[in-house]
């Protein structure tokens, strides 16, 4: 019997043998209410757990980072020794010492410096003293700037500077590492959460589809039965759930088919007996023949 002769338009599920059925992602949501409810519950619960516990993890991670950072900041580094610059001593006055003269009173260094030769009131006592006569001839010597004072530095200064800055850099790197660790936890949580939500959504829909699929198939058969068609029931696809439920359905379907066959057997026997008794043209027999025709058609 071809499809056009059928009274209803309910599609017949194809037998498994002919063309292997392939699940299509477009058909995954066939019972939206059931599938989305279960999937969203699973996804929602996981999201809730991830967000709630994730916030807790981040709170503790922030505290730990802060504690560790404080500890790192408090780590002492070897200090760089300070270099003391020694003051240049005052120049010695260029005069001969007077053994008889009393020790002069301490005077500011500026006073001791070479007084101007023709300064007023230079003192008559000084005039009698023997003076060193220096004759300055023209010289070809070039006046050079004063030689800088050589500052004495500790021998291990270089080593200590290196140690200090190595330590400082290590601490800075440690602080940066702590911050990176904190951020890594955050990104791992966000990444895992997103993957989990997407994965669960896909898995949930696929998992519920294995329940919704058999229900959809049974629903098609129910539509056919409602329209008075009791044709063959095919098996479920591999991996489908509700196998027991489907067996119950097949059992029930077989019971209805058997009912029709029993009716047919009884009615056909009556028709045959009536025809044998000469009642074949009776109006009731015509009605029974219609009944038989309808029941036979329903079983095709």
């Amino acid at each position, binding site marked *: 019997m071809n499809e056009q002769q059928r009274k209803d338009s309910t599609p017949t599920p194809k037998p498994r043998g002919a063309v292997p059925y392939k699940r299509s992602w477009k058909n995954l949501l066939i*019972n939206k*209410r*059931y599938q989305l409810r*279960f999937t969203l*519950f*699973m996804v929602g*619960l*996981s999201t809730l*757990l*991830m967000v709630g*516990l994730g916030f807790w*993890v981040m709170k*503790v*991670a922030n*505290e*730990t980072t802060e*504690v*560790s950072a404080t*500890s790192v900041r*408090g780590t002492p580094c070897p200090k760089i020794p300070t270099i003391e610059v020694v003051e240049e001593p005052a120049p010695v006055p260029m005069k001969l010492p007077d053994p008889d003269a009393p020790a002069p009173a301490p005077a500011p260094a500026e006073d001791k410096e070479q007084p101007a030769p023709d300064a007023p009131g230079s003192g008559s006592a000084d005039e009698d003293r023997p003076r060193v006569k220096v004759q300055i001839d023209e010289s070809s010597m070039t006046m050079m700037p004063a030689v800088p004072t050589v500052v004495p530095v500790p021998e291990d200064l270089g080593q200590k500077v290196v140690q200090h800055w190595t330590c400082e850099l290590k601490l800075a790197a440690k602080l940066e590492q702590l911050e990176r660790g904190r951020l890594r936890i955050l990104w791992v949580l966000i990444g895992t959460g997103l993957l*989990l939500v997407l994965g669960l959504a896909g898995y949930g829909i696929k*998992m519920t589809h294995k*329940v919704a699929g058999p*229900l959809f198939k*049974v629903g098609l058969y*129910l*539509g056919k*039965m*409602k*329209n*008075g068609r009791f044709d063959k029931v095919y098996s479920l696809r591999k991996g489908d*759930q*509700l196998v*027991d*439920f489907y067996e*119950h*359905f097949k*059992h*029930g*379907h077989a*019971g*209805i088919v058997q*009912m029709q066959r029993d*009716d047919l057997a*009884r*009615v056909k026997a*009556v028709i*045959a007996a*009536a025809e*044998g*008794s*000469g*009642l074949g043209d*009776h109006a*009731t*027999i015509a*009605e*029974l023949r219609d*009944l038989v025709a309808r*029941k036979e058609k329903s079983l095709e």
Partner: protein
Amino acid sequence: MSDPTAATGAPASPRPRYKRKLSNYLLDKKLQLRYVLIVTVLSGVIAGALGFMIYQQRRAASESIEKDLAALTQKDTSQDQFQEQIASDLASEDQALVYKMVGVGIGLVVILSLYLILMTHKVAGPLFKVSMYFERMADGRLGVVTPLRKGDMLVDFFTSFKEMHDAVRTRAQDDVATMDKAMQALRDAQNQGDYRGEAHSKLTEALEALEKHVADRKSKLTDFPPRSA
């Protein structure tokens, strides 16, 4: 287990309100436990992994504090006891956190499992009920289909089942009426015609068989006995 397909209305005595029993909650163990296990294990894994991370972070902070304290009190032996006390306090706080998290995790799993059993029961219940009707149909019994309980899922599926069941039942009742009417008409015709012989006896036998068949059908098409019966 009570029969969920039992008819609702007994005219004489009102049907007692159906109550869900604890023992009936796992109607389809395979379907229900599968979902319950998946969700529970998943939640356990998430909670366990994040809980471990929390513990790890907390322990790291405690160890950092202990280390710093040890460094501070290194030269002062009188502070040893204080240091041990602080370390012990921190360790017991961390331990308490672990117990707290394990407790919350177990609570979560138990509550979640119970809730999921209730949730899946709302799917397994209608399937169980429809399965019972299918078994009755297998025996040719086509009684009245009672509605689902409040809160049950798969309402659309159940509605299409009920429509099918009602249509098959109506058609069966019509068939029985047709057969009954034909039986009476043929009996009358047989009596009026004064038939004799083998053909007559064959028709009588066929009509008797049909009568039994119709009586059987009628009995199976009547409503199911009420629950209290």
